[in-house]
Structures are given as C-alpha cells and as structure tokens.
C-alpha cells in the first residue's frame, strides 16, 4: 500500500524544523526560503500551519506540463518532477492553486515536495509529530480532510 504525508496543524509548535530539514536535505544548505514545506504562523492565535504539495490525483500541474517533466509517480504515490525534461515554463506553478509548486528563477528549477523518495526528512525532524508519513487508508484521508475544519475552528474561536 502506498503512503501519504499527514499534517496535524493542531500539534504544530511552529518551530520550522521541517523547513530546515527539507532545505538542507535537498540543497545541502540551510535556506528555508527554498524549503518544499512551508509553515505559516499566526502568533496571536498561537497557531501554525505547515503546507506542502498534496500530491494530488489528477494533479493540475501534471495536466499542464508541456514536456511531461511533471508526472505521476505511482510507485511512490507522488507527483514527481524530472529536472532533465523541465524547460522552466512555469505552467505548473500557474496551475497549482495552493502555490505548492514554486519556480526558483535563479537556478531555473521547480521546488516541490518529492517526499524525499519515501523517507521524508520533515517527518523525521518534526519534534511535535505534527507531520507523519502513513499508509494511505480511508481513515487517513478523512483525517486529512478534518485538518481544514480544525483550521477554521482555530480562527473562529478567536475574539
């Protein structure tokens, strides 16, 4: 069975260890700006929200790629990106409504979660278990949906 990345924002402490681990794993340096996972924090609510590629089925970024560089990788249940085929046209960045596909102009490359080829560093280094890499089951998918509800609740409770 394939695995999926689960995010539990309610457990997130906002420490950004995920972004640090991600950037150093992929780029060999601590440059959180180019991390494939990003954490948004609202200090007054004491709430943080990690976001990264959802590895969509029927991903819009795959549909629009004119070279097949962005493609489905069924063996790892992910949307994968092939640097050799990519021309840097940014159709994928324009397609993703979550902004989870980023084009780095300086290096002409796409920055996007690749699940670290099956051993996500963000999960390894998350001290709060806010990130988990789990078997993709119905209940896991349901929990993923519940995240949006939790997010909403957090901000509704304020004030």
């Amino acid at each position, binding site marked *: 069975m394939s695995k999926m990345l689960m995010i539990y924002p309610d457990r997130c402490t906002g420490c950004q260890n995920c972004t*640090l681990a991600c950037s150093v794993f992929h780029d060999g340096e601590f440059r959180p700006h180019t991390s494939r996972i990003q954490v948004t924090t609202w200090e007054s609510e004491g709430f943080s929200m990690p976001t990264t590629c959802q590895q969509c089925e029927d991903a819009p970024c795959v549909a629009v790629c004119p070279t097949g560089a962005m493609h489905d990788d069924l063996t790892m249940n992910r949307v994968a990106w092939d640097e050799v085929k990519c021309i840097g046209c940014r159709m994928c960045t324009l397609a993703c409504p979550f902004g989870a596909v980023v084009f780095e102009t300086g290096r002409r490359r796409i920055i996007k979660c690749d699940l670290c080829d099956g051993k996500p560093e963000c999960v390894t280094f998350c001290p709060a278990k806010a990130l988990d890499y789990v078997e993709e089951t119905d209940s896991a998918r349901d929990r993923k949906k519940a995240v949006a509800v939790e997010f909403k609740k957090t901000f509704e409770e304020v004030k």
Partner: protein
Amino acid sequence: MYGWIGRYLRIDLGSGTVRKEVITPDLARKYLGGRGLGTHFMMTEVDPKVDPLSPQNKLIFAAGPLCGTNAPSASHYDVISKGPLNGTIAASSSGGLFGPMLKYAGYDMIILEGKSAKPVYLWICDDVVEIRDAAEIWGKTVPETTEAIRSATDEEASVACIGPAGERLVLFANVMNECGRAAGRSGVGAVMGSKNLKAIAVRGTGAVRVPDPKAFREAVVKASAKIKANSVGGKGLKNYGTDVLVNILNELGGLPTRNFLDGYFPTADKVGGESLAKQLLIRPRGCYACIISCGRATKVTNPKFAGQGEGPEYETAWAFGPDCGIDDLDAVTKANYICNDYGMDTITMGSSVACAMNLFENGVITTKDTDGIALNFGDAEAMVELVRKTAEGEGFGKKLALGSYRMAESYGHPEYSMTCKKQEMPAYDPRAIQGIGLNFATGNRGGCHVRGYTISPEVLGQPVKLDPRVTEGKPALDITFQDLTAALDSSGMCLFTTFGLGAEDLAELLSAATGLNITTEEFMKIGARIWNLERLFNLKAGLSALDDKLPERLTKEPILTGPSKGLVNRIDEMLPEYYKLRGWDSAGIPTKNTLADLGL
C-alpha cells in the same frame, strides 16, 4: 566561512548611513557570535562610562554561528548594549525567528549607532537595507507594530520591536520579536527607544552553510537524542512549560514570596505549570528550530483579565504571583500579556510591584504615593493595575518604570529592593539555594538566573544532584556554569539545551557547523574570555567588588516558613574563593596573568 556569514551591518541612525562590514575568522573564533562578539564591539567602540540612553551608547543585535542551522533549539540572538537599568554590560538573549532571519538575509550582526532625529524602523531584505519612517507606528503596541510592519514589508518578515514602554524609556523595556519572544532583561528596549528606533524587520532568502551537511546532520541527530532522553526533552516542559518549576521550588522552600520576605508560598500550586496546563493552555509553542517547545499559547476567558497570547513562563508566574503574594493565575497571565504587548521585562516589573507592596505594607509609602491604590500583598487587581500604569506611563507607574531599586531609593529605602547590581533577582531564593546566590551576586548584568543556572544541579538534580544548602564547591560550580553559558549564548543555542548537552556536545556541534576544530577546552575558554571581558567593561564603568553582593535581607533575615525555614545565604563563605578561582585579585579585578591567558 561556514556557520558564520562573515558580514555585519553598521548603521548610523544619526546620519542614516549603512555600511556592510566583514567579520574576520580570527575574531569570530575568539568570541563566536551573539553575546561574545557584541561585547567585544561594545568594549572596543564604546566608553563604558557612557550614559546608556545617550546617542554615544551603541545597540548591537548579534546571532551566533549555530543560529539558522537545525542544531536543536539554536535560534538565539543577543541584544548587547550598556543597560540603562543598572549601567552594566547588558546582553539579552531571545529565541524565535529573528536571529536566523538576520543570517538568511546575510548578516551575523547589526551595530546601531547614534540617534535618529525622528522615529524610524529598519527594513532589511537580503541586500536591501532601508531606514524607514516610523511616525505611523510610534506609540503602537508590539502586536500592532508587528502587524503594521509586516503589512508594509513582507508577511513572512521577522519583526523585532519595542512597545510603548521602550519608547517611554521604561528602564526595563524589552526588545520583542515574533510578538511573544523577548530580549527581556536590563532594559535594552529603552536603549532602542532612546535611539528613536521602533523596530527592525528582516526577511532573508539566503542560506547558512555548514561544511559537511551529512556530518552535521549526524551531530544534530545525536544532540537531539541526548536532549530528548533528558528531562527537558521529555513531556515535562512541553506539557507544563517552565512554570512546572513553581511547585518544585516551593516544595524545596526556595520560592521567594512577598518580596523575599519568605521562601514558601502555601498556595503556589495555583500558579504552577500543572494549573496552567489545565486552565489556560491552548497549545505548546516552539521557537525557531526548537525541539523542546516550552512556549505557551494561552487564553484567559475570565472577563476581568481576559486576553490571549504567550506565557507565562516560570519567572513571570513567580514575579506576578508568589513574589506579590498572589495566587490568581488569570491575573498573573494578564500581567504577562500587558508586558508582552508594551514590551517590558516581567521579572523586573513583578519584582517592582512586590517591592512597592512591601513599602506600602511597611508604611514607607501610602495611597498618596500610589494614586490612591492600596498595595497589599495578594491583591491581584492592584498588581495588574500597576503593570498597566507602568505600561501606559501613568502616575505611580512612572516610578515603577525606574525599577525597584531607584523607586525604593527615591523613598529613602533602597534596602527594600531585591536586586543585585540594581537588577531584580529572579525566582530562586538564595537562602535556600546557596550557589544561585553567589551567581546572582557575581552576575555581570546583576541579578539574573540565565548567567549561570546552578539551579540545574542544586534543585533539579542535573546533571548530578548537589545539595543546595551547601556552599562548598559552589564557586567552582558557578564559574563552570557562567563560562558555559557565555559560550553557549554566543553560539546561538538556547540555554535549555544544556539540560541535555554538555560543553563537549556543544563544542562538537560548533565544530560541525563551522568546520573548525573547537575543543571542549577551547569552548570553555571562550566562555571565560567573554565573562572576563564583561567584567572589565563593568569595572571600567565604575562598578567594583562592592557590587558583588546580595541584598541584606538574604544574608540576615532567615526564611520564615516552609522547609527552608531559618536559612540565610552565606555568600561570604563563597565569594573569596570565587575570586581566586576566577584568577581575580581580592578586589575582584582580573589579574594580568588571567587576562593574558585569555588573550584579553
């Protein structure tokens, strides 16, 4: 350079000039960064006798070499200046995003000089450094300022700013970053206010590099495992925050109560971490790169003290709680929120209220002095009102804004001020815990627990259990802790990592980050160098051995109740040995040999 960026900003607020200067590898290795490097520049560029709130004082923001990496909980930067509360060398440490962001923007440090003619803030985005007008945000609270600046610059920027307290030169004003993180002690926020500098906002898209990412990863995993295996990385701090200490100090009889009149507070549990977790905690929070998560996102619903925000941590809960004879957690937390929003140090604020209550109960001051407010120990509403008045600069609040020493002195009774070198002592009673008393007395920025946290062995039993009632061996212990902490502060790590990591682990992390072979001995020597440098600054500023003392109350008036009843601190048994082990003469002055050995 690895670890370091090797570059810093020098900004003259008077002329508006911005210069980018280089940090040489030799200097970086000598002082690491943060507190050490900042103190070096203070010592070489500023007359220690300078008026702290004059344009001639400098204000330095400095991160350490580990800052910006994922070394566990390595997010600390220091604000270094001559502190206005007591005129000593001040280095206030804070975690959060600011330090790492500064490095990602391409700088290890910012040196601020002079004084701006009008309120300004700095916007640093990688190579772009702008001095911007702050007329619109002057007067705003910390969250308002943070939001306004982010809105004008970048949503993801880190904002270090002062609140209205810093603008009004409250002598214990903080520099706040990410709203709830504070460079909290000694009044560095007032220095910032005196320069008409409201905030520094930073956004960096660059990188911190290490020589061998794989090897560094191993060092990080190893260090993290040590921390996690230790008490600090376990459930305790994450579930209960630092406020979990209230009960252990109270059970020991070392919880200063009612302005240090006592060392035991029967209802302390009501303001302890267990109660906090049950009543107010929303969720634990972590600083940047933190694996401990001692931060508290809390919410008070009680309409009298309603609010939401960060805290309280232990010293805060103590200062507004037991030290004022108060056991109302809602009120304590509210006072914390006000301090966060206005940018004030909670320890000095709470202790100053406690001191005022003490003066009031003993009839030194009356309602005529206090705007009609009766100041009795235990009065939660009066306490919150005094905090508010100080924050707003109202009436008696203006007196409190001077800190407890100057306030008590103005009524002719400085002995009511529970301070060392005019800075308020935090939440550990030196009568019950001998070693911490020596540390308070010798602290280079005055009464302070984070200059040598001997509570670790003396109370918490880490790394070994040492008897708090014993003075023997404590001078050596204090020196070790003081030096270790100085080097740690300068490397960018959080002090809490020392519950799991020793000097050898820290030296290993530093070596992995910088590519230099920094041994344990070198690491400790760097700490000693920094400590002695700070001492030299203070001596040149006019301080002397006479200032290495505790308030008389702690050496002459025994604890009244509880397990430590009858005890006093015996600093006289420790101080001479401390000087000797430090390599200082009997007047507390470092000998030539000592300085030469340290390369000073």
